[in-house]
């Protein structure tokens, strides 16, 4: 029933005990959910580097930046105050935020396409999208340039 490593040692003992406690319903359910969870990885947009950073606030997109630009800090105002986003060297993070839980600043740096940091209290969303992604293209498309 178990792979070799699972029926030996203290961990194997616990694993078997736990497994015996599960009903057949549990086992089928967990297997199914595991397949769905793993499968959902494949439905993600392709990840890669050299993405663009999209910063959104309450009123919509407020900035589009290339990931590998020299370091800079961008201030974004939200309902609680000003959040600061740091971009540079191929990655981006929430440098500071006026939100109480600081989930966004604790998220640290992100650098992969598809990754995002979202600060729910201050309504700031930082996303990395691919250069070729449809959304990036449509947000980069310009009908004209004033000069």
């Amino acid at each position, binding site marked *: 029933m178990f792979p070799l490593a699972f029926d030996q040692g203290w961990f194997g003992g616990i694993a078997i005990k736990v497994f015996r406690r599960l009903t057949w319903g549990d086992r089928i359910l967990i297997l199914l959910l595991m397949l769905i969870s793993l499968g959902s990885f494949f439905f993600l947009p392709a990840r890669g580097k050299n993405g663009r950073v999209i910063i959104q606030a309450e009123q919509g997109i407020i*900035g589009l930046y290339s990931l590998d630009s020299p370091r800079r800090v961008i201030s974004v105002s939200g309902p609680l105050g000003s959040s600061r986003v740091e971009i540079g060297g191929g990655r981006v993070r929430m440098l500071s935020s006026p939100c109480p839980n600081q989930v966004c600043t604790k998220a640290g740096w992100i650098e992969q396409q598809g990754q995002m940091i979202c600060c729910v209290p201050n309504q700031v969303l930082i996303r990395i999208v691919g250069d070729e992604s449809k959304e990036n293209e449509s947000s980069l498309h310009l009908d004209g340039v004033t000069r």
Partner: protein
Amino acid sequence: MAAIGRAFEVMQEIENQASKRIPSSLTSRINQAAGRGSIPVSADFFEMIKKSLEYSRLTEGAFDITIGAVTELYHFEDGQGTLPDPSAIRQKLPLVGYQQIQLDEERRTVGLGRPGAMIDLGGIAKGFAVNKAVESLKESGIKAGIVNAGGDIRLFGYKPGHKLWRIGIQHPRKPDQVIASLEITDQSIVTSGDYERFFIRGGVRYHHILDPKTGYPARGCQSVTIVSETATDAMSAGIFVLGPEKGMALIERLPQIEGLIIDREGKAFVSSGLRSRLVWRDSH
């Protein structure tokens, strides 16, 4: 297509009348007659001169078409430019002043008071032509469109799918990049920048937006972008000359215009009504 052809004709006609390079243009004839008399002009041309006087008053002389006498000394149009002798500028400066423009509504004539004075409509003709082209398109029953005359843009109606137009604003120091973009319709967006026509002598940039008070290029800004109902390149040029502080104060005072000023250090100032509409780009 006929409507578009007509719009182009309208713009071409304004260009022909306003250009100082065409010897037979209204501008050239007014300049030749300066101090001696007035020239009868077309209705559109008369309206353009009237508008330019309006902007001169609004900007307290920061925008002034009679700067032409000084502009000529720089030879921006030859692609190389000439740094004029300070004494030459001093000599021409008294010829500058919009108060000398004589308009006669009845006979529809335009004249200059001082002999040797010259008008240069480079700062207003493009925007004016854009507005006339949009009027012409709308008269032809066109519901939506974009008219772009070398960066002076006016938009009306919606794109397919009821979408707004997205317009980029040129980065003043990175030629192939935009500093920000915004979504817009039924408005115009024009920019005056020190990067359009310029030359560099001794490490100093000499560009075509001259301060009518000094005769030298205005130094306060790198670029000024104005968003308003009709294309007002005269306004962006005037505010460029006024500089970031006075310029922004004027933008905030006038309810119908919004603007973005990039100062000489590259710092961006955005008017209150535009702040939430701009999407900053990379190069910001």
